[in-house]
């Protein structure tokens, strides 16, 4: 097992080199100059020339890439063109927000998605099945910006139950430790902030969780249906085991593997930042950050950000693969 993990970790290196080259080329090949993007109508020829000089944009691409990688290997991801602050610092201010949102969205998606999938599989072609799977179909095809705005309008404005956007109410104090507000509130025992943070988290997490929820529901249903038809389930029932045990212990456990794959993929994907959700709910995560960096041609942020996100994605995938062997002991990595 350890061997396997080590091997997988080593494989990250070529992946990251590939990602870094791709990210580097993409951002440098799209037209548009960072000086112009930054200064807009105000950019003068001298300023453009000066900025290009300072950023070394006049050198050949491979020289620029070499310089970039040399710095990255020393742990220096550079400074943003736009704000002049270190990329790592900027990322560290935003990534916790993305983690918080992703975890909350996945909790909602897994609980509701698997629940709906299991019920649909146990009572296939019933009214539950049709309504759950119908909703799931709507869920996968719902545009997040529309759903988000509707949620805000209903719960934030009309009913006034939840704050429309943001992470914490103005006036609520919270001492930050990890910058994951829910966690920070628990660590510092600040229950007012915990409640406030959860109330802010609910709507964006629900909006973000819809698509994974629908995918998990459909995957759980089809995987469960297949398992429920197998001999060992019939045997279990014939033994006279209660239905609950048959479903949760025998069937679900065996049906869980493909579901876990979907969960893992979606989790890694969402950690890369959810531009739409973060935009609508004014959530200060890395999706919005990367989006703005791309539009302002902030090369250091785009390059550094993509590299860091790729790293996270690879780690989550590794984690899922390791989890496989826990869920299904027949899977061994040797």
């Amino acid at each position: 097992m350890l061997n396997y993990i080590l091997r997988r970790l080593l494989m990250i290196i070529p992946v990251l080199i590939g990602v870094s080259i791709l990210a580097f080329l993409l951002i440098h090949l799209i037209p548009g100059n960072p000086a112009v993007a930054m200064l807009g109508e105000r950019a003068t020829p001298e300023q453009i020339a000066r900025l290009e000089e300072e950023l070394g944009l006049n050198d050949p691409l491979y020289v620029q890439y070499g310089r970039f990688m040399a710095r990255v290997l020393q742990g220096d991801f550079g400074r943003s063109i736009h704000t002049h602050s270190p990329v790592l610092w900027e990322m560290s201010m935003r990534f916790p927000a993305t983690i918080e949102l992703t975890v909350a969205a996945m909790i909602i998606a897994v609980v509701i998605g698997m629940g709906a999938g299991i019920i649909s599989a146990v009572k296939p072609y019933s009214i539950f099945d049709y309504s759950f799977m119908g909703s799931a179909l709507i869920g996968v095809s719902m545009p997040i910006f529309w759903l988000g705005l509707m949620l805000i309008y209903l719960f934030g404005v009309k009913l006034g139950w939840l704050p429309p956007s943001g992470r914490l109410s103005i006036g609520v104090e919270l001492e930050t430790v990890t910058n994951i507000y829910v966690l920070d509130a628990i660590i510092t025992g600040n229950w007012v902030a915990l409640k406030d943070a959860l109330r802010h988290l609910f709507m964006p997490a629900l909006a973000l969780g819809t698509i994974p929820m629908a995918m998990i529901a459909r995957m759980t249903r089809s995987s469960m249906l297949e398992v429920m038809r197998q001999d060992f389930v019939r045997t279990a029932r014939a033994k006279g085991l209660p239905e609950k045990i048959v479903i949760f212990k025998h069937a679900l456990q065996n049906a869980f593997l493909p579901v876990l794959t979907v969960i893992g993929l979606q989790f890694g994907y969402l950690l890369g930042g959810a531009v739409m959700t973060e935009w609508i709910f004014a959530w200060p995560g890395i999706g919005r950050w990367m989006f703005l960096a791309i539009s302002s041609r902030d090369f250091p942020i785009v390059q550094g950000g993509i590299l860091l996100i790729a790293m996270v994605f690879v780690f989550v995938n590794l984690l899922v693969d390791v989890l496989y062997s826990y869920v299904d002991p027949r899977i061994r990595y040797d």
Partner: protein
Amino acid sequence: MKRFTNKLIIVLVMLFALSVLVAGCGGGAPAEDQGKQEAANEKVLVWGRGGDSPGLDPANVTDGESAKVTINIFDGLVQYKQDSTEIEPALATDWKVSEDGKTWTFYLRQGVKFHDGTDFDAEDVVFNFERWMYKDHEYHIGGTFDYWGYMFGDYPGVVESVTAKDKYTVEFKLKKPMATFLANLAMFPFGIASPEAVKEYGEDFFKHPVGTGPFKFVEWVPDDKIVLEKFEDYWGEKAKVDKLVFRSIPDNSTRLMELQAGTIDIMDGISPDDVATIKNDERFQLILRPSMNVGYVAMNMEKEPFDDPRVRKAVNMAINKKEIIDAFFAGLAKPAKNPLPPSLWGYNDAIEDYPYDPPKAKALLAEAGYPDGFETTLWTMPVPRPYFPQPQKIAEAIQANLAEVGIKAEIITYDWATYLEKVENGEHDMAMLGWTGDNGDPDNFLYVLLDKDNAVKPAGNIAFYKNDELHDILIEAQQEMDQEVRAQLYKQAQEIIHEDAPWVPMSHSTPPIAAKKNVIGYVPHPTGVEKLNTVDIQ
């Protein structure tokens, strides 16, 4: 392993239930309480806006979102009056200029304190100017000091030296007379920072700003909020609210819903479509910012057929500005007849705009040798700008207007950075662009956008309009210290521009701001940023 799955499910279910429970606890509370819980007796003004500030060191930022915050933290030597671009004292109480216009002496306000408790004097002014103007200054770091180079020509540019004559007197020696010197100093980038703080934070000063302004910096959560609090020792009118919070809410609809939910007090960046909603809601007031911008269609005079003045005039007569403004600015703009916005001194109101007259436009085109019109391109930006809130739709309306006189214009667009680059390199035939003034001086519009000096690629003068007579007038006005004389020169300049018609001046927009009815004392400034010490919540 079975236990693992079960436990996982149980834990997940419990977490979910807990979150729903906690989230639901506040259910039914009145909307006003959501998201804004004020401590007793503490007045908090929350400003909702579209983007975060890239930085809070005024000398190192160029954008409005940064300026909006820094102007509340820093003071310059002089400042604009609350409702115009005329100059009034700030950290300097008085000043004088020598006969030759090359020596400026400023007498400083005494007893002013920085937020870090240090005292303000002439040495601090010298430190700040030297930091901005000398590239080899130890603290010329944390950015590229763009506005200095931009307004004063270079590093050090037009300023030869800055010296402290005594504790409260500073003398500037200039290399040549500069009529816009005072107006430049009133701009937000030239706010005086505490030298102690600049030295302490170095490259990180942009997130630890310390000035002398009415609010002092408290906290910055990137992309979320910036919190300032009242500075009790402010030299001027002390802030009426205890805290000032700038929240970044990128989506226009969400921001409006935050206002409706009562979680923010005032907001900018309103979609034209939402203006009616705000007007019809008795809880809100709609405030119009006086225009200091111009939106225009530039005709590339280096390309046929726009080298012919008759064609340019015909285009001017073909476009129905009033209809476009009613449709796409929600009426919140004035039709433009000059490149200068009417709020600026030197505006020539005697000029009569080309009338909207398609038959006459057709006749002019025929005279120029295009009886059946011609094919051309109309470039438009992909993002809303203050001067063009809905550029795509405006472009389509112009396209339809032009088609009526036989000009077939194809609409071309690129992403914003690419667009600017291509347009500044003259790849367009006709292009939509605009300008928001920096220092409230006519030079900042006419010289920057229409002088032949700036028709060099990449150009600020994207009509590539070159007129020597105009050039001489604009240069003369730059050297003249008497504002009356300068105003006359600029009026003359506007006549020449009108006759040559390098642009179709389209509009001067008055960007709307929405606030709750109980927000009082807010005066929007033409420059787009203002100190909020006079604002109160009833």
